[in-house]
């Protein structure tokens, strides 16, 4: 069931939606009336950072928010940062929304809104999903656990809320595509974007990536539910450290070739990286029915199936990514799919 943990955000009161109209001039064209919610003063900027794995939709989420902000009449900027471009690799995406021209570019080091779409990234040192969280940051973690569980296990600043958006999208869209719901949460938290605009933005961005109308409609449905259940946090004051942070310029000395050249002397440590944490569904073999044909073993693209002394396939669950090639290839259909929820 979809549930939004409200405990961590209990200090946020209901905010009255003050609606103001502003005329916006777009180039040489005619004036256009646009509606801005909760406009109090100039110089509002919201910095949103999305964390996810390649394929989950965080880039699209950042674009949905960017488009929504643009349609609402704000200045907007969005972009992704990949590193190694492959499915499952940690990625970040960013959106900046402001009522004034945005004089910033690049990675958002201190987010106001920090969306972590994949809870397994919390343990990934390279992904560093909690860096830069300040006392005004709202972090949303996609997990079935409550926010207290996150707070007890990880150190971060600011507010935390948890929401199981994977469950929500599996229920409504039948696919673990998180873009629209992550975007919906972010939009609501900015306090600057309306439901109608969010809908327009979702349709636009999902059409751009050639999704069918039926799928887009389901995305909108899930997103609107998420939007309604996300508390309005526009009242939370951002208390990031002002300007100067102690970080002096250092003088670099010559380090010699063994240190100063881009090479690695330690043994490869890929083997310590357990990719089993990427799974949402787990393959299970019915050994009563298995005929030991080895089709699954041969086809597993990650070499995660071994044959034991009795000739039966054994799945390495520490590394199995849940691609289900084995299930697709099994001629007897003895492999099934089980929903797996992370145990920490």
């Amino acid at each position: 069931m979809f549930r939004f943990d409200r405990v961590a955000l209990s200090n946020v009161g209901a905010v009255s939606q003050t609606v103001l109209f502003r005329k916006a001039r777009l180039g040489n064209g005619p004036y256009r009336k646009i509606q801005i919610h909760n406009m109090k003063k100039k110089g509002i900027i919201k910095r949103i950072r999305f964390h996810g794995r390649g394929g989950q939709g965080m880039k699209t989420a950042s674009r949905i928010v960017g488009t929504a902000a643009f349609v609402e009449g704000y200045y907007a900027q969005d972009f992704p940062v990949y590193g190694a471009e492959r499915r499952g690799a940690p990625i970040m995406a960013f959106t900046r929304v402001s009522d004034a021209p945005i004089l910033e570019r690049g990675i958002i080091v201190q987010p106001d809104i920090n969306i972590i779409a994949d809870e397994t990234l919390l343990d990934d040192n390279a992904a560093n999903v909690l860096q830069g969280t300040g006392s005004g940051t709202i972090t949303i973690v996609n997990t079935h656990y409550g926010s207290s569980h996150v707070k007890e296990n990880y150190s971060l600043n600011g507010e935390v809320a948890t929401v199981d958006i994977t469950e929500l999208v599996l229920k409504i869209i039948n696919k673990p595509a998180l873009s629209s719901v992550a975007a919906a949460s972010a939009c609501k938290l900015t306090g600057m974007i309306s439901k109608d605009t969010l809908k327009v933005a979702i349709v636009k961005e999902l059409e751009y990536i050639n999704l069918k109308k039926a799928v887009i409609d389901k995305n909108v449905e899930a997103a609107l539910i998420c939007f309604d259940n996300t508390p309005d946090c526009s009242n939370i004051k951002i208390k990031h450290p002002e300007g100067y942070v102690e970080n002096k310029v250092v003088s670099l000395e010559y380090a010699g070739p063994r240190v100063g050249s881009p090479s690695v002397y330690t043994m490869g440590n890929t083997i310590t990286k357990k990719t089993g944490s990427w799974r949402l569904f787990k393959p299970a073999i019915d050994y009563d029915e298995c005929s030991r044909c080895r089709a699954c073993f041969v086809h597993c693209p990650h070499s995660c199936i071994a044959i034991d002394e009795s000739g039966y396939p054994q799945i390495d669950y520490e590394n199995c990514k849940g691609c289900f090639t084995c299930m697709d290839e099994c001629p007897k259909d003895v492999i099934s799919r089980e929903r797996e929820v992370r145990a920490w």
Partner: protein
Amino acid sequence: MVKEMLTGNYAAAWGARLADVDYVPAFPITPQSEIIEVLSKWINGGAMDAIFTNMDSEHSMITAAGTASATGTRVFSATSSQGLLYGFEMLYNIAGWRAPLVMINVSRAVSAPITLEPDHNDILSARDTGIIQIHTETCQEVLDTILMAYRISEDERVLLPVLINMDGFYLSFTREPVLIPDKNEVKGFLPEYAPRHAFFKASEPMAQGVAVLGGSAYSYFKYQLHLASLNAIEVYNEVASEFKGVFGRSYPAIEGFMMEDATYVLIMSNSFTIKGKAALKVFREKGIKVGLLRLRLIRPFPNSELKRLLSKKKAAAIIDQNISPGSGGILFKDVSAALYHETHRPEVLLSFVGGLGGKDISPEEFNYIIDVMKKSVDTGVVPETQILYTENDMRQMNKLLKVAGKTTD
């Protein structure tokens, strides 16, 4: 005219589309592939009337671009870092052929070490090829510059290819609002290419790119190329002025920001300039009179404009997002050479190298730059090239060095 959220790459594709180009030889490379992907989609779907050819490498691609231009077609292409370098000898060739065309370089720091993030060593390596270079700061500017670049390139006083630089990731993959000009307005500003020196016509056969033996002949054509490039300053100014008249957007060869009463000046280029502008606002609030110059036209180098803008300023700091190892920042050399004999040149000229491989230039590094400027003015002692690297950078680096087994602690 329509306003849309576009990435720098998409804006570049729109520039080529509005310029009504005839031929796009292509080869992919991160971070520019999106440009040619979009163009191929448009050409295939009929939205653009052009020919698109997948080449086997950037060397072939640049050759194809130059030779196609020599037949009288309007050509567009795009590349980056390793790709630009792969076709390097052909860059000199197409300029030497006097083949007008526009090519985008999406800047990416050059291997080794391998990275995908931006700096300017790739584009600046081409500064001696004879190709005109313009560097951009925003996605809007990318689109607009393509339109201006064809005018400059095809002008009879110039007839040289143009390389337009846009930062990888910071512009190429970043979406921001871009005004897409109306097709008919563009047609009025940028008419069809009408070549008089190089074209393919059966009744008027000619030989292009002929071999020259003898120093006098070689020198003659090379000097002509140099003179053409110098002409491009005047042509650039004319075209930019006309562009402003038609489209309302202004792009001087050097952009000045808060310069009127400035005593200290930061000199930057490309998308990181926005960080300088943000830092400036903070300094101004503290009462420090800092201004900023953004170098846009790099080749030809706008000497007189630079001299005029820096006249009577106390100090200038050039922040190079590039490095010539063993020497220092590249643009610093162009700036100092321009100012050497100027009576009212700044008394202090400082060189900073930062942002290599896309490393951030933080507010703390800007503070450092201003401190060094002030100290140099007060003491009269001007330090050598400063490389920008912070405690945080070093801390992160030490962690990585340890994991890689390169340090003993």
